[in-house]
């Protein structure tokens, strides 16, 4: 219950209230009992109103004199008895309430109540973000910028405080609580009808696993996207239907392999999974040859496994080869000294990957390697976002930012569920096809990473198209992608994928007519996206684009138009 704090106050204040009532009752009795004399000798007693009034102004120690007449000594002696208890009772009450406010249990109860209230008030679809580290904060920022709301759970109080100081576009409620516990997930809005899903991105695999299980058991319809750094956890998550598991190390290894084998495809991949509205960069092509992998931990292992598959030779440099069961031929050492790098054969190597879990070591490795051979292809793992400026300054050919990798990947899964499908299919094509896609994306993107979104043809997302269809007018893809202001111009958007029950078509023909139930994966500028949305909702715009015919609109004009036919 969320007014638990109110009940706590009531229960705690029971004692002080009883003492207050008792002391007032006693005071009133005493005040009324003792008789006094007028100056003319007549006796008088206080009535209820006098007594209550007298106590009211003396008890909180204001006190302004004797009332209604001057007291005699018997009254003064007796009244002291009446005045002290209420004063003490008030003091007791105030001390109790101050103590209650400082009580950590009470404060937590109040915070929980506030958080639940804020979550309940969320009126747009929202995601529950478990873990507000580097990844979590990137995700929350990007989600809010795309119009999603979010609620945040993290065990670290400081991070939650940090959340409230950021200037996000929307208000994001956050609570310092353990996502392992189902009731905390519930507080974060698991049962909320607007809850779209849960992003488990804590740095603890076990917590992420626990979150995934809880959500899938309680609300199978909700989407769960998890971060997992161990293979076993990832397999476990997949086993009970977690929608997506993002392993930053495996996904980097995958990208490295792609960059080596299919550089054109790698470029498309980077662009489509980047953070929208950041500059579109040209990843340099990694050279063929031997790689030096520094560090054989989870990251190093993931990369080596992938390199094995595509037959790229590599040499591992590891400080504790026995403990990590490194492959034969591993060079013993950290890789931060020139000696070790030389021993590993840097003179004949093509690239160096610094993959230890220490940022200072990684920077040191790439600097030393560059010192020996300035022309090397360098990649380094960046563990803490706080070190980003240093890694930027090092000008690596391929930075590895696990939190950034996870955030961008999750984001594209949220905004464009068809993207993984497209990337999977695209890998099967040849190089010239990849180059064509890359050229198309560069044309429409205007130099920045394009937005990716999905459209489902139907009454909800494209009512105008459905209406025209019911009038017998077929709408083709190229009609949608024309600029209504200038018929010669095309919108800055490209359809990457068309999904139908019977077919999945990458880069569909613009002349193909759309059918209800079709799903489209588009990429382009934000302006093109909003223009396309407008077209899909406005019958006359769409009719004009499809047929060149301009028709009056509004019920009366429509009726007149029908009459004149």
């Amino acid at each position, binding site marked *: 219950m969320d007014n638990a704090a109110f009940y*706590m106050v009531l229960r705690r*204040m029971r004692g002080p*209230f*009883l003492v207050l*009532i008792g002391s007032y*009752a006693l005071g009133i009795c005493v005040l009324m009992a003792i008789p006094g004399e007028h100056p003319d000798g007549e006796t008088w007693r206080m*009535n*209820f*109103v006098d007594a209550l009034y007298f106590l009211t102004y003396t008890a909180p120690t204001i006190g302004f004199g004797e009332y209604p007449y001057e007291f005699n000594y018997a009254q003064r002696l007796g009244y002291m008895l009446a005045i002290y208890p209420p004063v003490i009772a008030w003091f007791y009450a105030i001390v109790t309430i101050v103590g209650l406010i400082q009580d950590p249990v009470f404060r937590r109860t109040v915070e929980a109540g506030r958080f639940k209230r804020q979550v309940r008030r969320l009126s747009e679809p929202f995601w529950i973000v478990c873990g507000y580290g580097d990844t979590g904060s990137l995700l929350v920022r990007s989600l809010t910028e795309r119009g999603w709301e979010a609620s945040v759970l993290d065990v670290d109080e400081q991070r939650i405080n940090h959340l409230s100081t950021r200037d996000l576009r929307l208000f994001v409620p956050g609570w310092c609580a353990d996502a392992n516990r189902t009731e905390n997930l519930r507080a974060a809005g698991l049962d909320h009808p607007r809850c779209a899903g849960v992003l488990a991105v804590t740095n603890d695999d076990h917590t992420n696993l626990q979150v995934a299980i809880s959500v899938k058991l309680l609300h199978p319809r909700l989407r769960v996207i998890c971060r997992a750094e161990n293979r076993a956890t990832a397999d476990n998550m997949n086993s009970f239907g977690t929608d997506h598991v993002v392993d930053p190390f495996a996904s980097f290894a995958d990208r490295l392999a792609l960059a080596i084998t299919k550089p054109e495809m790698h470029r498309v991949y980077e662009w489509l999974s980047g953070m929208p509205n950041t500059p579109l960069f040209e990843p340099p092509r990694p050279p063929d040859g031997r790689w030096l992998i520094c560090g054989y931990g989870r990251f190093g292992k993931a990369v080596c496994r992938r390199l094995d598959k595509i037959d790229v030779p590599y040499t591992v440099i590891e400080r504790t080869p026995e403990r990590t069961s490194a492959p034969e031929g591993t060079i013993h050492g950290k890789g931060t000294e020139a000696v070790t790098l030389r021993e590993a054969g840097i003179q004949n190597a093509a690239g160096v990957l610094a993959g230890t879990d220490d940022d200072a070591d990684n920077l040191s490795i790439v600097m030393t390697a560059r010192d020996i051979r300035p022309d090397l292809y360098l990649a380094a793992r960046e563990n803490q976002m706080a070190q980003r400026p240093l890694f930027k300054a090092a000008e690596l050919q391929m930075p590895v930012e696990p939190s950034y990798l996870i955030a961008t990947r999750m984001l594209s899964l949220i905004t464009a569920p068809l993207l993984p499908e497209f990337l999977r299919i695209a890998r099967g094509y040849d190089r010239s096809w990849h180059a064509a896609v890359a050229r198309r994306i560069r044309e429409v993107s205007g130099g920045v990473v394009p937005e990716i979104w999905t459209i489902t043809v139907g009454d909800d997302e494209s009512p105008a198209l459905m209406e025209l269809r019911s009038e017998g007018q077929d709408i083709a893809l190229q009609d949608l992608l024309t600029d209504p202001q200038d018929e010669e111009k095309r919108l800055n958007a490209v359809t990457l994928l068309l999904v139908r029950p019977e077919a999945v078509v990458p880069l569909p023909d613009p002349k193909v007519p759309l059918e209800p139930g079709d799903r489209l994966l588009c990429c382009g500028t934000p302006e093109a996206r909003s223009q396309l949305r407008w077209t899909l909702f406005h019958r006359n715009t769409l009719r004009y684009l499809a047929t060149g015919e301009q028709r009056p609109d509004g019920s009366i004009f429509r009726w007149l138009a029908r009459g004149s036919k």
Partner: protein
Amino acid sequence: MNLEKVVFGFFILLALTLNFGFVYGEIDNPAHHASWELFAAIVVNLVATVLKFGERTQIGAILLAASLVADLQLIAAAILWGVALYGTGAGLTEMTMASIVSLAGGALVANIVSVTLLIIETVRIHR
């Protein structure tokens, strides 16, 4: 036997009996209704209310509500009495007295509800 239960029951019952004692008598006759009895009824009712604070059961909530109603009615009666005597100077007319006693009568009903609920709860637990 639980001392807390005894105190709780004691105050709730006492609130009812005091209230009844005040209301008992001819409705418009000031001689039949003592002011100190009203005072005692108010104090005991307030104590009973505070004792019910923080009960989060359904029956606890209704008990508290009944008590708050009784407080409200009794305090209204006391204010009316005070205003009639000292505020307007009209004194205790038959009309005023009848109003005071009927207000207290309303509180009596609330107190009866309280006691009934208490008995129901006790019986339910014992079964």
